[in-house]
């Protein structure tokens, strides 16, 4: 076959035989990979489409801001407050861990600490819910604070790893310049390194909050004992929250309840998608800025 094609330089250049088979196999593989990507996007679009179409009818000013049964204002407030308190607990610790990883620890310590963070990240959220129950609810009864505590443990590794990645991007030349000026380590960390990375740290925190705000498992164990008829501000009482209420309605099997649940799903999905898409875009921007400088 090769001899024939050498003797006939003007012969057809289309591949034949074995090569043709290999190229078809490659083309089939490419198509399947593309199909896999399309499938995943289709699943995302389908879920969000359903939530939007079925939930849009419920959305109104009253639904968002009034108390139950007209609206779900207390649940919305509770979800935001639980997430906020969890973040206030997790963020300082997470950022300090990130600083320890980038500024202080040796290679061995960093490896151990990263392993710990990965293990924390891998803990199922229901386990953290059980933990918060033992640590808090057993003694004080249900409360939003117990839920916040579980969410803080979920957020901690995300914030620490995210901040660490941003801190690593802070150019070494900045640290060296500050060392050359004879500035103490802690001053250069607080006044040079942290401010440079601040944007990235905040956006990775927002990403962690977006992830935690939709967590349900810790909350149904620790803050499910509410009726939603009043706004609750005290975190040491059971706080109404959206995920638990959606779960409750989905278990009840009542069509009007389903409609409410779709409406709440839409609110939750909207908050989470907007904040995580926004944070992603900002993170990409600040990463680009840091790596180019």
């Amino acid at each position, binding site marked *: 076959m090769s001899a024939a094609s050498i003797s006939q330089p003007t012969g057809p250049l289309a591949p034949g035989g074995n090569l043709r088979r290999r190229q078809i196999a490659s083309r089939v593989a490419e198509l399947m990979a593309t199909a896999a990507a399309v499938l995943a996007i289709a*699943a995302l679009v389908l879920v969000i489409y359903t939530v939007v179409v079925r939930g849009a009818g419920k959305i109104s000013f009253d639904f968002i801001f009034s108390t139950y049964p007209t609206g779900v204002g207390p649940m919305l407030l509770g979800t935001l407050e639980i997430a906020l308190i969890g973040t206030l607990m997790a963020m300082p610790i997470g950022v300090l861990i990130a600083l*320890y990883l980038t500024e202080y620890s040796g290679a061995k310590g960093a490896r151990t*600490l990263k392993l*710990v963070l990965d293990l924390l990240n891998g803990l*199922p959220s229901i*386990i953290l819910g059980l933990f918060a129950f033992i640590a808090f609810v057993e003694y004080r009864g249900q409360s939003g604070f117990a839920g916040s505590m579980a969410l803080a443990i979920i957020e901690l590794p995300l914030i620490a790893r995210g901040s660490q990645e941003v801190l690593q991007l802070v150019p070494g030349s900045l640290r060296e310049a500050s060392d050359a000026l004879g500035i103490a380590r802690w001053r250069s960390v607080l006044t040079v390194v942290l401010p440079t990375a601040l944007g990235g740290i905040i956006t990775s925190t927002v990403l962690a909050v977006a992830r935690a705000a939709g967590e349900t498992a810790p909350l*149904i164990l620790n803050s499910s004992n509410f009726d939603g008829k009043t706004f609750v501000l005290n975190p040491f009482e059971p706080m109404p929250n959206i995920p638990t209420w959606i779960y409750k309605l989905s*278990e009840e099997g009542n069509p009007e309840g389903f409609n409410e649940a779709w409406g709440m799903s839409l609110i939750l999905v909207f908050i989470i998608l907007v904040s995580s898409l926004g944070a992603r875009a900002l993170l990409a921007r600040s990463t680009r800025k840091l790596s180019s400088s």
Partner: protein
Amino acid sequence: MSASASAAPRAAGRGTRVSPLRRRGDRFGDRFLLGICLAAALVAGGTIFLVGYQIVHGASPAISKFGLGFVTDTEWQPNFGVFGAGVLLFGTAVTSAFALLLGGPIAIAIGLFLTLLAPKGVGAVIGPLVELLAAIPSVILGFWGLLVLAPFLQEHVEPFLHDHLGFIPIFGEPKTTGLSLFTASLILTIMVIPIIASITRDLFRSVPVELQDGASALGATRWEVVRGIILPTTSSGVIAACILGLGRALGEAIAVSQVIGAGFQIKSSLFETGNTLAAQIALQFPGALTELHKASLYYCGVILLVIGLTANLLAQWIGNRFGYAGVVAR
């Protein structure tokens, strides 16, 4: 900064020397910052131990009553004080394995698509979108599974599979509700895909371009580059990614409890109801009355914790090995 401002004139007067006051302040500041950073790191480590200790402590009545037999015992009757996690372990294993078998290849294919096939602009859109799949709260995914996916599967997919592949025992007679191990597996598949896809994408990107170009120059087709270069150099990392995905699937409680139907028997068909360890905790813990019932649910948590931590450690270990291999390859 205020301390340095007050010290500045004196420092200027003595040339470049720093005032002793400021030096002492700096020494304290350095120690203090290192101290609180270290303390934060210890909090992270302590949290893991505390979680493990508390869960085991909560489970201790059930552990001392049922022993290891709890793991294989299939009776779960709260009214009679009889508890065994056999059915739950079975359901957990089946749904997670199925999710991984289905989701793993899809996710790896997406990773390949994003690294090799997608034009830059398209990849920059699709990559984050796939990751967004992980951002959908599990309660909403479960709710969607309950009202949209389960009826659809029950009406169309399950009868089809039963008619054509019914000779395989896992594709038994469809039930009336659509709540089944099968539906739960598919929901878990959706949750596993973004995790594995984003890790494998980063892995595939790390494969040296020279190797790929070399293979192409020798006449390899794109698929042959993938099979001969990309997959072999990243195989251990891909396995680690799959184990991480498995860990996620094992521990998912909410979405699974919404669509699995809370069955309490081991059956061969995927279209039957079942239950998992995590889902059982979510379903029964809020209403658990006796101490033994609670302790048994904590025991389920202990099993989950052991499996989850093992899976994670295994993934990290394999991943570290890959890290060294990658360094050597360069």
